[in-house]
């Protein structure tokens, strides 16, 4: 029986991955939505790891994605590598190369220095993978900081603290127009500045397909990493912290270390998603960090199933496609429903109903039904309903949920 389940699980994974790889051939016109859906899937499932597994209800997840995006964007805007010193900008020597920072005090220093630099001097931007990596590191640093600051705060206090952090960050990015472009947005280079070629087919930088595969690779990598983490001691420990922090500490779980680690890892994942997203959409604005975006990610995770990484990811993908599909207006008799707004009403209502009636989400129970192969029905709860049938086999301490004092 156990072996069967394992094969079934493996089969589901292979089928799911294969489906996502073949998706561009099924819906070639909707690649933009597909990339955004994967972006939300990464965010929702990493939030599920943070909140569903670890019990840390952080509202700063979009802020970490924003940190990743803005780090990538700002590096692209301000930092260049040259093969000769400019003599005008702030610069650091790296052997034969120079790292040039065009700060806001002298935004045109590189332009004016071009005249004096020797002929054939190379001026290059950092490649996207490098600035995304920098974004991940900066996101991780912020995650570490926030994780360390919120150690003593629980539930509501944690939620309020993280909301405040996200709002402060968004406000600063909004206000400092000279550096970040403010609400108008910051231009970011495309993911493949010179286009990409697979086989003998060449894609232009504007093509969505290469970006889709980059986002898909990130998604699969992140899912593998999170499943490994959730299945390891780390996953066990953070779940024990969620259930009862003091009890976990008394049994030898290093609560401080694992909570900070959890924040750092999920912040890095969010920052990675944000960095790729920035290079994909090519204009990022502080609006990507507003509370509405955070609500959407939370709702996706909740509807998918907060305690399941895969459930949250599938939920995110389905909901993103559904939201895009529902944009067109519906006319019923004399009334025209402006679906651009009403779809979010439906979505909010669905979130509340899911929370109220299906605490495990809508997708997770289905996944369980498939992967457990019928074993799930033989649960403690079932056994308790028929105590006479297998009296000897039922555990002595399995006497239903503990009574609430």
């Amino acid at each position, binding site marked *: 029986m156990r072996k069967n389940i394992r094969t079934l699980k493996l089969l589901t994974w292979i089928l799911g991955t294969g489906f996502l790889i073949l998706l561009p051939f099924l819906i070639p016109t909707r690649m933009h939505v597909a990339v955004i859906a994967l972006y939300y899937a990464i965010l929702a499932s990493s939030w599920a790891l943070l*909140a569903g597994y670890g*019990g840390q*209800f952080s509202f700063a997840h979009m802020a970490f994605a924003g940190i990743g995006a803005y780090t990538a964007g700002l590096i692209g805007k301000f930092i260049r590598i040259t093969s000769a010193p400019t003599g005008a900008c702030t610069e650091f020597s790296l052997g034969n190369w120079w790292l040039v920072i065009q700060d806001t005090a002298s935004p045109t220093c590189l332009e004016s220095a071009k005249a004096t630099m020797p002929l054939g001097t190379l001026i290059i931007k950092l490649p996207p993978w490098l600035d995304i990596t920098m974004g991940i590191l900066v996101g991780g640093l912020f995650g570490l900081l926030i994780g360390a*600051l919120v150690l*003593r*705060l629980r*539930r*509501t*206090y944690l*939620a*309020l*603290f993280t*909301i*405040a*952090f996200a*709002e*402060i960050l968004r*406000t*600063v990015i*909004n*206000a400092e*127009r000279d550096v970040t472009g*403010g609400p108008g947005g910051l231009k970011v280079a495309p993911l493949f500045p010179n286009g990409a070629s697979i086989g003998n087919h060449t894609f232009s930088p504007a093509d969505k397909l290469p970006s889709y595969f980059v986002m898909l690779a990130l998604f699969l990598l992140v899912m593998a990493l999170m499943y490994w983490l959730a299945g390891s001691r780390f996953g066990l420990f953070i779940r024990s912290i969620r259930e009862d922090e003091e009890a976990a500490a008394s049994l030898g779980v290093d609560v401080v270390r694992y909570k900070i680690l959890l924040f750092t890892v999920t912040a890095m994942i969010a920052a990675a998603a944000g960095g790729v997203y920035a290079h994909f959409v090519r204009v990022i604005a502080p609006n990507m960090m507003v*509370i*509405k975006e955070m*609500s959407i990610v*939370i*709702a996706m995770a*909740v509807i998918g199933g907060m305690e399941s990484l895969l459930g949250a990811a599938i939920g995110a993908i389905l909901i993103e496609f559904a939201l895009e599909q529902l944009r067109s207006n519906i006319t019923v008799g004399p009334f025209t*429903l*402006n679906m651009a*707004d*009403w779809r*979010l*009403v439906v*979505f*909010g*209502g669905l*979130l*509340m109903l899911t*929370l*109220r009636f299906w*605490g495990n989400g809508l997708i997770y129970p289905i996944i369980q039904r498939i992967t457990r192969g019928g074993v799930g029905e033989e649960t403690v709860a079932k056994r308790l309903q028929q105590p006479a049938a297998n009296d000897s086999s039922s555990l002595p301490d399995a006497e239903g949920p503990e009574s*609430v004092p």
Partner: protein
Amino acid sequence: MTHPSIFWYTLLWLILWGAIGALITPRVYARKDKFTHQTALLGSFIGAALGPIGLILLWIFTPQLTAKWLLGSGLIALFWLALAFAKAAPENLCVTSGSFVATQIANGLVIGSIYGLMALGLTLIFSILGIVSFAHGEFYMLGGMVTYYFTQVWFPDLSPLLGVAAAALFTFLLGALFELLFLRPMITGQIERPGEYAILVTFGLAFFLQYTTLSLVGASPKKVPRFFDYPKITVPSGTGEIIKITPGNLTFFDTISISSPRFTALIIALILLFALLYFLYKTWTGKALRAVSQDRQAAAVTGINPKRMNTLAFALGGMLAGISGASLVQVFSWVPWVGIPASSRSFVIIVLGGMGSLPGAFIGGLILGVVEALGAGCVPDPHRAAAYLPAYGMIILVLVLLLKPTGLFGREL
């Protein structure tokens, strides 16, 4: 600013020694076997106020903490900051014009009293149900919207006060309905993790209400003219007027100027505040509410139904937010997402005042109102001043949560 570096270096100096004080002081107290309670707070204040000298003296003598120490060092730190600002920006209106500062503070107090009223609702909910409603700002928004439709669209001939009453009734019923449908299952044990559930479900309600309103009324800003025109009075007439009233504005002592819609809102807030205090301290139901907030089981033993009190508290909390919105709809233009900053402000206020503390909520509201008014008036670049407005409260929230999570008047955790 003419010399911005003076201000920024002073601020950096205050933060540096404040942080050092907050980190090291508890360890010094612990090593000397003294009571370490709130020594991080004291250390940060002393560090910011008196720098390294104050900190070394504090670590040598390690006095027992009293409110006097905190208040004194906090005021000194504020004084340094104000002095640095005055030196850095001698041409700023906040430095040169006393009447401008007085007007800003007075307007901050007026708006702050409405914020306080709204936060009072949130703190009432927290003290009875033990949850923070993330949809509080949406009740505020709905209060304003109902008033707009009542006074401008449906019944333009009736008194605007009836519009406020309609808003109160609507938000009260909405709060009661939501509590019965979604929060009641928490206490009857139908929800697995009530604490987390409450955060998420109120968050979902906020999203739902916001987009329902947007879909129904559209995104264009709604405006309500001021409820009352005051008669023209000047006391005494001639020079040296104490009060000068025109239909749109009130001027006190020739210096402090408050627009009349704000003044009306202040009056409504004060009436509501006293009505609430009367209700909570003099009526049976109010006493029952306070009893439940102090001890659920004991209250239940004496014959109070805690479940009904939950519904009442949530409905009352929503109603207070709704009335705040209804009285401010004549001051600001109203859009469906006006509740988002309002929610954030309420969070700041209840954390600052202490979660569950009624006087704390009102005083916290006044403090936040003044901080925002001074921040908006004194930051030199007007674009930046407006853009940074949401951040001031959030910085207060972060600092309070880090240094003194119980707030000014909160119960000990």
